[in-house]
């Protein structure tokens, strides 16, 4: 069951939907028509759009993995990572937004509040990140190293009966 793939590509908005459909097809094949496959596809799309939109050079990185997390129970860790270079202002905004997720007691309510706030703004609203947290229950984290920004969306699931 353990599987992962990496992609490195020049930022292209056209590629995002292609990758989403690939992720959905791949994990439906591996997991069956499980909601988890759709959650992974949704999170991949939103993270990748951000990575393409806010990239400041010619490389965007994506890794999607499904790894067994325990020998004793059929628990698997699903992880999506995107990495790209970004402007200091975007890194500051993104870090603040992820901090709000950590403090939010109700991710769905935060998402609704962010939708309302974003209607008056044009960019950098963090709606895609909020949607991942609200609609997939995946944890969203951020790592910053200079101008490199990495988003990690993660969820642990019991996939009993599949090996």
């Amino acid at each position, binding site marked *: 069951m353990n599987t992962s793939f990496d992609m490195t590509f020049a930022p292209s908005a056209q590629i995002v*939907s292609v990758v*989403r459909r690939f992720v959905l097809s791949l994990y439906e094949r591996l997991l069956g028509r499980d909601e988890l496959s*759709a959650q992974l596809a*949704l999170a991949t*799309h*939103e993270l990748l759009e951000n990575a*393409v939109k806010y990239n400041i050079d010619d490389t965007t990185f994506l890794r999607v993995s499904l790894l067994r997390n325990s020998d004793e129970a059929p628990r698997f860790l699903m992880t999506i990572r995107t990495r790209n270079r970004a402007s200091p202002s975007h890194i500051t905004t993104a870090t603040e937004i992820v901090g709000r997720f950590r403090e939010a007691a109700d991710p769905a309510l935060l998402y609704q509040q962010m939708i309302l706030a974003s209607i008056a703004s044009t960019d950098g609203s963090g709606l*895609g990140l909020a949607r991942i947290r609200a609609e997939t229950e995946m944890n969203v984290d951020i790592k910053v190293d200079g101008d490199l920004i990495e988003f990690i969306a993660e969820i642990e699931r019991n996939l009993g009966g599949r090996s």
Partner: protein
Amino acid sequence: MTADDLDLDLDLGDLRAAFAADDVLRLILAGSADFNNEVAVRELLAAVDERIRRLRAREVVVDLRALDFMNSSCFKQLISWILAARQHPEEQRYRIRLRVDPSRYWQKRSLTAISFFGDGIVIVDAG
């Protein structure tokens, strides 16, 4: 009103839209609404709103069943339209009937947010 008045079709490759007036006004969306066509979605919904009000219709059906995916930016445009429609004067106000396919995960989950913003003017048909 003529049929030409209601020809509001859109083909952007990944995203297709068709607006039609039979016994009811219908906007049908298919494909994928994402980063590539956020502006087109905003303009389309504004144009649809204008047509509905011009026709003084009381309801529009928005058929999302063939829409594989809608990203958060386009979803925001849909919410913006709903919020704007709520603010119309009584004589121009209309219902938005969303026809959805609950087997599509994003449609099922996003209904929660839609019902939060709909405030009586949005009806969700999950048939």
